């Protein structure tokens, strides 16, 4: 057994030494979600890809720690804030204009350092046995109403929730954000570790409504089709209608600029965009690719106008969350 293992190790070492240098990707996106897509990239371009999978914030911290010695060529991140943080630290290089222009200006870096590949809308998920959609407020700000006391769930340590609070601060100001946090806190929401846990709890009937990203519902329904949970979209333009993106950036100092650019471009091709739409139930960001049937179109969701790079400014948000006792 041991000998066989050593042999495999040796073989893998020598084979990587012989082949052309593969493209190294740090992926904050899950292997189950993007693994098949990366395989398609290799099939199509002949470029081998090595992937380190991990949590987006931890990979971002690792990339910051590695600095210019990083083995990574590309960062495929779960949210724009992480890409913004790396951009601010001077770790990303500009993408070609042709790639950037494929995507609506709201969903890419204004300085061209990263581009969104798929969209993820904030929604209110609710238990269909306990809540009727008509009872839900038009604005996320409506959840401070006392009638929601003891019925809500959220995940305040979760990056996507914090991105939403940052957006709320940027759009309505710190005071309004504080008032909202205090108002919802007064309704004694249950606290969960992440979006998936909120959706699970909704299924159990532990809570009536929760603040999550739109696609967790579809993942949960894969395990249990009868889950009594549905998504509700607040009115267009509301901070609660924020669409954040998973996106891609090329690391400063990579020796494989061409291949890295091909990778970024590939994620915006119709095939990849359709994959996001069908397999992960995310929003395609390139015009002309159809949104999954269960979802309202991106135009209808109406994400508020905001530079998503600024979502990396989370220190103020974390302080606000701590001052209001949410964290």
């Amino acid at each position, binding site marked *: 057994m041991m000998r066989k293992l050593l042999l495999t190790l040796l073989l893998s070492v020598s084979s990587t030494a012989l082949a052309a240098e593969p493209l190294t990707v740090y992926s904050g996106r899950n292997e189950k979600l993007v693994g098949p897509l990366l395989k398609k990239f290799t099939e199509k371009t002949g470029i081998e890809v090595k992937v380190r999978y991990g949590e987006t*914030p931890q990979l971002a911290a690792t990339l910051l720690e590695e600095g210019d010695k990083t083995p990574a060529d590309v960062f495929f991140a779960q949210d724009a804030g992480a890409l913004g943080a790396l951009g601010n630290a001077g770790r990303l290089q500009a993408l070609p204009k042709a790639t950037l222009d494929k995507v609506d200006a709201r969903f890419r870096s204004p300085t061209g350092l990263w581009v969104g590949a798929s969209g993820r809308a904030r929604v209110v998920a609710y238990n269909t046995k306990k809540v009727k959609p008509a009872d839900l407020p038009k604005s996320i700000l409506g959840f401070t109403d006392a009638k929601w006391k003891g019925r809500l769930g959220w995940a305040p340590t979760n990056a996507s929730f914090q991105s939403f609070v940052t957006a709320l601060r940027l759009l309505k100001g710190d005071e309004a954000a504080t008032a909202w946090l205090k108002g919802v806190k007064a309704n004694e929401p249950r606290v969960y570790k992440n979006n998936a846990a909120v959706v699970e709890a909704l299924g159990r009937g532990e809570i009536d409504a929760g603040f999550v990203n739109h696609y967790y519902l579809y993942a949960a329904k894969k395990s249990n089709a009868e889950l009594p949970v549905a998504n509700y979209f607040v009115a267009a333009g509301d901070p609660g209608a924020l669409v954040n993106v998973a996106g891609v950036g090329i690391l400063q100092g990579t020796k494989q600029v061409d291949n890295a650019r091909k990778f970024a471009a590939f994620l915006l091709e119709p095939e990849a965009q359709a994959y996001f739409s069908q397999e992960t139930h995310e929003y395609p960001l390139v015009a002309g690719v159809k949104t999954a049937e269960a979802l309202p179109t991106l135009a209808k969701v109406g994400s508020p106008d905001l530079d998503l790079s600024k979502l990396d400014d989370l220190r103020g948000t974390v302080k606000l969350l701590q001052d209001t006792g949410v964290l």
Partner: protein
Amino acid sequence: MTRRPPGWLLVSGLMVAALAVLPAVYLGVRAAEADADTWALLWRDKTWGLLWRTLGLAVAVTVCAALVALPLAWLTTRTDLPGRRGWTVLLCVPLAVPTFVSGYVLLATFGNGGVLEEPLSRWGLPVPSVYGFPGALLALTVSTYPYLFLALRAGLLAQDPAWLEGARSLGMSPARAFWKVTAPLLRPAFVSGALLVGLYVLSDFGAVALLQYDAFSRAIYVQYEGAYDRTYAALLGLALVVVTAAVLVLEVRLRGRAGYHRSAKGAARVFSPVSLGRWRWPALLLCGAVVAVGVVLPVGVLVYWGVRGLVGESASMMAPALGSVLASVLGAVASVLGALPLAFLAVRYPGRLTLAMERVSYVGYALPPIVLALSLVFLGVRALPFLYGTLAMLVLAYVVRFLPQAVGTVRSALLQLNPHLAEAAASLGQSPSTVFRRVTAPLLRPGLMAGAALVFLTAMKELPATLLLAPIGFETLATRVWGATAEGRFAEAALPALVLMAISALGVGLLVSQEGDAPRG
């Protein structure tokens, strides 16, 4: 008895200690970048509140873990309890249960619509709330008592029966003899196990987050989760290092300077087991109850998930299982090897320096694992680029993280070993390496085995360092489980999690069967 340690021993000890202190150095470098605003964040009342809550939880969990572990350790080493070895293995398994599973079990049992709701409502009783302190206490006690269990077992196995028999022959009742003789001799083992439990609680993030208990480690994690703010996180981390240092100093006071080894002539015999008689039924009930909560429940939940999802795509578990075993075994062996010089220096050559070196090995233990992983990234890209991205880097990370588990057990085993045995062998003309191989190592075996078992079990489920430092494409069962649960695909997590627990149980089983009738000094 202060002698100068041999140079090679001191040098190897210093190298291990330097590695162990790395996370603190890293935090120092990052914290040095802090401006006044960031320091102000640290000195807020909120920070102190967090600190007290965290320490309170650590003390409570340690006490509860001791109440569970002591009777179990005694029952499985000193009595004729039926199926002692089987129980020992099962009682260690909770250490290998991934946190997300144990947390989910609690929620599925006590949560709304949970298992307890219906039976309790029939009696008109409300379901006790699992959130906050009680839930965190329960979850952490179940997942950490094996630290104490293994440490106490090793301590009990290494004891010389002559003492207990002496006390009994002088007319002490069995109970009195236990508290007057056995228990005091267990002090080093107890303190080392308790230290691991307490410090683990300081570092734990999973349980406190899931059960909504606001603790220090959670505050650190929040910074890395969303804020990309390494400076503030470093300050919080350093605060935790300071707390750890205080605990370590306190422990030195507690452990005292007594000798714990036998000094009489002759060799120790094997204990004749206490006959439990009718008491074996409540004893079995106790073992059964702990195993039910710590092992059967999580396995049940996993099987339920697996069956519910009917494991659509049953990907091969071979590669990740091999990866887990390879990395964990290397981590366990390397940690025990690293622990040996530190423990030897501290026990055989006591002094300020050697004591400090042994203490330092605990510094990183109370830090959230993500901090540790980042400190190794920091070291790797700067000082060890040739190791960075290889399996060696991951093993190094396991050593830094799990070293205290090995140091504690090796140290308490060494304390119970009479130095004159080794000295006698040396005086008969044996070289130091022969003395170690033929005299010391066999006598230390229970301690070394317990240390290796602890590291193996915890390395099997290690995640943050494995994700960031393993060679790209290197999969373990833990990363598989993580990959499936991160997106809420619980059904796909079931199989790798069950395989992980089975291999862990198998590993402990092997070690326990080795433990057998080791000679004692």
